[in-house]
């Protein structure tokens, strides 16, 4: 039997920042193309920064699969997140080379300076840090990425300096 509960539902999103019209061209483009769920989710995360539950339910409804399947895919891949992140997402590499060269100390420095745990947003909304498996810049280890920019040969002091600079730039705006 087909599920009807989402059929005539009026779609409203808890997060007012979600403008669902952005998704329309993407959903249209991949309509009927099997196997495009991951690509659609990647686009959605690009637009909104994260993938809230009600958005996942909407995507499931639009492409005609069960919400559980969409959530299953989202929770399987590390790239997807169901909670919002700070304006600057810090990806701290925890690859082998970085581990050997002291990435644990770099994480300590990040935690001390930002005063949040992994995945949380700083009170000013500026930063979130996440540990990632490997950024592929092993010869510059330890490494972190903020936005598109990669920072290498990190030390505790260098990390604090970089974060302070970003903070100052933000304050100047």
């Amino acid at each position, binding site marked *: 039997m087909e599920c009807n509960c989402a059929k005539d539902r009026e779609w409203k999103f808890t997060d007012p920042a979600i403008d669902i019209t952005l998704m329309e061209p993407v959903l249209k483009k991949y309509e009927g193309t099997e196997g495009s*769920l991951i690509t659609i989710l990647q686009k959605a995360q690009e637009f909104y920064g994260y993938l809230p539950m009600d958005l996942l339910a909407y995507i499931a409804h639009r492409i005609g699969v069960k919400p559980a399947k969409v959530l299953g895919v989202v929770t399987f891949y590390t790239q997807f997140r169901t909670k919002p992140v700070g304006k600057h997402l810090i990806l701290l590499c925890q690859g082998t080379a*970085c581990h050997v*060269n002291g990435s644990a100390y770099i994480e300590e420095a990040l935690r001390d300076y930002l005063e949040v745990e992994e995945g949380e947003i700083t009170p000013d909304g500026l930063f979130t840090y996440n540990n990632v498996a490997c950024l592929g810049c092993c010869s510059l280890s330890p490494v972190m990425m903020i936005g598109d920019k990669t920072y290498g040969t990190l030390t505790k002091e260098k990390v604090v300096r970089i974060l302070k600079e970003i903070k100052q730039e933000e304050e100047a705006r």
Partner: protein
Amino acid sequence: MKIIVGKGSCGIAAGAAEIYKLLEQGVQDTNLNYPVTVTGCIGMCYLEPIVDVVEDDGSKHTYVKVTPEAANEILKSIRGEENKAEQYAISGEDLEGLNEQCRIALKNCGIINPENIDEYIEKEGYIAAEKCIMELTPEQVIEEVKTSGIGGRGGAGFPTWFKWKAARDSKGDKKYVICNADEGDPGAFMDRAVIEGDPHALIEGMLIAAYAIGSDEGIVYVRAEYPLAIIRLEKAMEQARERGLLGKNLFGSDFCFDIRIKAGAGAFVCGEETALIASLEGERGMPRLKPPFPAQKGYWQKPSNINNVETYANIAWIIRNGGAAFSAMGTENSKGTKVFALTGKIAKGGLVEVPMGKTIRDVVFGVGGGIKDGKAFKAVQMGGPSGGCIPNELVDTMIDYRTLAATGAIMGSGGMVVMDETTCMVDMARFFLDFTCKESCGKCIHCRIGTRRMLEILERICDGNGREGDIELLSELSEQIKDGALCALGQTAPNPVLTTIRYFRNEYEDHIHRKKCTAHQCKPLLTYEIDAEKCTGCTLCSRKCPANAITGELKKSHKIDLEKCIKCGKCAEVCRFGAVVVD
């Protein structure tokens, strides 16, 4: 004259983008019409940013570790003014390290501009593809690859020709050529370097594979963490289409082939081919039992051939120079060359390509320049989470699929993480199990629960709570997981533990029985004491101690209360007299 800036991901991280801008601006300002272009990673990551100045007669000056000041000096030398550029020139020793290598997959990396197809074509680009399509039958192409003896460079070394033939022989109206660029091995980055530095080598390799198996559609599955690689590959594909090297009726024949990119979403297990296919189909990337192999039933149940980036990057060379030239290099059961990512506690880290049959010593102490900061070499980790640690005693082991497997490690995709005396081997085993445990897809019990139990045991050993019999328990669990897991991720997950037990059993015993970590990495096992003779009583440590565990009067030696000490290491970090003794 031409100025070339190395702009791979690692170069950019070292500041190459800024140097590029400075040089471009500097050249414009003085109305010199010399082109400033980019190239990929040459592999000498420890020297980045690197700038080449190529004279009209082809002679080349290479400048390394280029700072903005150095860029200024280079500009002065270009303008013919008095300058100090020479002090930034590459040393003879470093140049020798580059010349010692034998480059096939990395042939053009760091030499050509990856964003300009003409530069690839100038280096005999697409000649091999044309030869295959116009002169050879698909069977002849497969035969040539068979002669070369090349094995899959993703790690297992499975004969490439065999996969191609199986896919060719499979019946199907539609076949796929897939490139595995989901380089998830922490500590390996050769695939990124090849795509960023020489994307057409990959395209040409896939084109030849497609002709050999009879496919018209290719897919490259790239990690989303490699944005620059995706951009460069897209650009290269666009240029290839414009030249009629991708698309319909290639070289005037009736052979058609095009490629699309699929960005991965971050899951190590997707490096396994059946999991990769599941991910391509938009599902959770969970492996399935083989057979049927992808060559029979792959993407959308159609015959599919999956090879690694480095494998494809070798193919055009093999066709151009003949399979025999390739198989002339290497050992009896490992032919050709292999690219290694040399990282960790190494003096000259980067990418190196050497013929099979060289020893680990040749790579680590020859090309790699030995250990950083004059410390003692302890081990090299090969094959990432599926591999193992090869100890100092076996440093003369030959690089060859079989001899490496005999040590308990594997060739893997080519990550070589060098470790020195300050690396704790139990902690390394814990690190890898933490990784595989997180990356286990959860489908089979042996991997899902087995790696978790192993991790718990390793964690308690590192925390100082190791028990009698833990080593035996780890070994027993390892064997069971190896036998029982569904895919290669689980089957190889115990390797880092087994090899460290095999070669560094004494470290495990120190942790369990003596509650000591000789490498001083496992914090709960450390004790901090102040050497009364060296302590000057400056009070700095007691002021910095977050636990108020240090007492003592000004100008008199201090003492740490071991009951209060939380082993944070702050005192040792701040002491200027080396008076804090860590054991």
